[in-house]
């Protein structure tokens, strides 16, 4: 177990390094440059002064070396756009994204897992058809459209939920206020994940239902509810949890759109803004955080296998 973890951590560091290097390279290869320099009014002299102050006058390799060295010491540099330390800027956003993505994920799992098993238990039944149709709609509709539509219906027409933000500005902290702000973005973000997860769960459960051990269990007279939930469910869960681990980056990128439309102060939106503004240090800081999160979640997924299926052993 310890050896497994150590080896996986070694892999994790390698993956993160590769991701950072590729991101840095692509960012500098792309045309254009930092938005802070894209002011047609800048004179050549002012432009040089800014580049010097930001270290942009150095060769890209030197810039990357400096970034790596600093990052290894825990210094993630200072954002061009925010003119503030990246660590603080990103950390301020992490809880918001965690709350939004976490709530959406929780909703997805709570909805998709039982529905998927039910649908698989009676394929082509009324429930299966209805739910399947809805899932395709949810996958097909663009997130921003869904978000604007939700705002229009619930904030403008019905006027029952706030149109954006994570809390009422200037008010003291209140859980009810936070929760009201969370409802729409979490539902919108959950829509796509739920739909995809549901498809995974359904097909995985169908495969499980078809396995010989299920017939054996049935033959032994186990009631069908227990077959469904004790035997099929656990077996079917493994591919779904894998899918869940893979969903995380998608959830974070989906959060970027949702966060932008709902003015939710999260990391996804920060990432979009940093990328658009070519805020190199901020992009790198976010890349580091997100890649670390994804790698970590995948290690957790591996650990989960052992719990879900006793036949699996960690090597």
């Amino acid at each position, binding site marked *: 177990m310890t050896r497994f973890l150590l080896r996986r951590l070694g892999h994790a560091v390698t993956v993160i390094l590769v991701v950072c290097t590729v991101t840095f390279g692509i960012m500098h290869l792309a*045309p*254009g*440059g*930092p*938005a802070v*320099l*894209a*002011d*047609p*009014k*800048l004179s*050549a*002299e*002012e*432009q040089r*002064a800014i580049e010097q*102050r930001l270290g942009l006058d150095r060769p890209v390799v030197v810039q990357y070396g400096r970034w790596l060295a600093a990052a290894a010491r825990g210094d993630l540099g200072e954002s061009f756009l*925010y*003119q*503030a330390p990246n660590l603080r*800027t990103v950390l*301020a*956003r992490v809880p*918001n994204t965690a709350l939004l993505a976490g709530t959406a994920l929780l909703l997805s799992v709570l909805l998709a897992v039982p529905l998927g098993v039910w649908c698989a238990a009676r394929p082509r039944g009324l429930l299966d058809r209805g739910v399947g149709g809805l899932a395709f709609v949810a996958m097909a509709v663009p997130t*921003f459209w869904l*978000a*604007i539509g939700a*705002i*229009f219906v*619930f*904030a403008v027409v*019905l*006027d029952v939920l*706030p*149109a*954006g*933000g*994570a*809390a*009422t*500005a*200037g*008010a*003291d902290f*209140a*859980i*009810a*206020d936070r*929760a*009201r702000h969370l*409802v729409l973005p979490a539902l919108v973000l959950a829509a796509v994940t739920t739909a995809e997860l549901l498809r995974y769960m359904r097909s995985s459960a169908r495969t499980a239902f078809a396995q010989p051990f299920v017939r054996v269990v049935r033959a032994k007279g186990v009631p069908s509810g227990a077959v469904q939930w004790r035997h099929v469910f656990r077996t079917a869960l493994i591919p779904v949890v894998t899918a869940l681990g893979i969903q995380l980056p998608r959830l974070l990128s989906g959060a970027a759109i949702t966060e*932008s*439309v709902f*003015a*939710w*102060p*999260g990391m996804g*939106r*920060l990432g979009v*803004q940093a990328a658009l503004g070519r805020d190199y240090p901020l992009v790198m800081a976010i890349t580091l955080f997100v890649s670390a999160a994804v790698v970590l979640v995948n290690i957790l997924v591996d650990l989960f296998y052992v719990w879900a299926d006793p036949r699996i052993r960690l090597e």
Partner: protein
Amino acid sequence: MQRGTAGPPDAEAGIGAARTHRAGLSPGSDASIGLGARIRGRGRRALGGLAGILVCACAAPEGAPTAVTISIPLINDPILNPVLAPDIGSVLINKVVFPGLVRPDEQLRPTPDLATGWTTSPDGREYTFTLRPGVKWHDGHPFTAHDVAFTFDQIIDVSSGSRLRSDFAAVAGVDVIDSLTVRFRLHAPFAPFLALLGYNAGILPAHAFAGRRLTEATEFSRTRPIGTGPFRVIESIPGSAIVLERNPDYYGAPPKADRLVFRIVPDVNAQVAQLRAGELDIVPIEPANLPGVEGAPDVTVVENAVPQHFYVGFNQSLPLFARPVVRRALEYAVNRRAIIDGVLKGTADPPRGTIPVVLRDYHDASVPARPFAPDSARALLAQAGWRAGEDGVLHDRGGRPFRFTLLVDKGNPTREQAALAVQQDLRRIGVDASLQTMEFATLVRDRVLPGNFEAVLIWWTTPPDPDQYAYYATGQDNNHVRYSNRVADSLLAAGRATADTARRRELYSAFQRTEHEDPPVLVLYYPREILAVSSRVRGLPRLGLRDALRHSEALTRDPR
């Protein structure tokens, strides 16, 4: 909803800030949104419990009408320091927090603000300002001449991170005469000086920086700025909002609203939705958003002319565009009225040269505006030796086609459609322009600044002054189109060196006549800034938002 068209401008530097014009403001979401017992203001809200909340889509919250809050959108977290601020959003909030020595009135003329008056030396190279006594910074320190000197020392120091240096390149130094008197020494007489003082040059508190560089004072520029304005920042929530509260020590008229909230809402459609939901009060919008607010209850649309001109710039270092006759022909060929009516839904004024109508003292309406006349365009080009080839495209005597690439920034439907209209109009006279879109930052940095383009659709936002020396005089840094006309050079040089308004009016009138014969750029329109405003908002002056916000003490809103 009513629409008005009012005058004065606000300007912005540069072709800048593509995503721009939305700075938003929105008023008071105070009453917002709580569930159950929401008492507003500093209020606390009853915890409803999750279940309650999810179920309770019911009852729209009524806030107890205590505090008056005006909410305004920004598209990203601002930098709360007028000297460092690189974008229009930061400029807007800095207008509220950091007054300057002067401010523009509704005619866009500089009037006293932190300075009560000024005198100019006969040679126009020294300005001496008397400062307002008894002014306090938001932290209680007294405001003095040292603050003014400190601010301008930073502004003209290229290593400070200053974004205002080119505005004040004429300033040689600032002397403190006594605690309430400062003298500016200029390298040469510079007429736009006063207008620029009221434009972006908010004054910083010297004591807050004690020995530190401006760029190092992160907590100042992100969370705890100290200004002298009618509202002071009390809370800054990254990515969400900046909350400002009335400054009881404000030196001018007492602020009417209790709070100003700048909410970070990156998406303009979401801003409009929030306006309609009552969570924002003043939202700058694009023509494409008009259908979303016209006819909406409780929303008024106002339009204010601003000192901007949008144009197609032709690179005149290329032989294709070097001759004035060609550029005159292109002016005849483009149906600018159709662009204004069709693409901008009428929210712009037809152009006549590069000095927009909002500069009422200087825009000379007696200069002829070149009409849409494709036949005249064809005739001029034929005179210049262009003949139609069999593909319908014009060719010169050497057989080279009239063909070029027109660049436009990606993602703004108004500008993309305008570029398309230009392309189609030109095709009709046999000029073959192909469109290329790219991100604004790429466009500016890789193409416009190095002069690596044939034609580009872009714009200038200027201070409220007709000085355009930097853009259109030969060899200047901002003359990206490489325009060069001796007469224009001398008129522009004289115009910035003359303080006398009547004399300047003559000079700029002559400049516009010169432009008519030798157009530096093909001006497409003078846009108006469109603001969607909650009908409850009162006290918003007929100024572009940037200048209007320097009058934020007058803003208020009726109770619900």
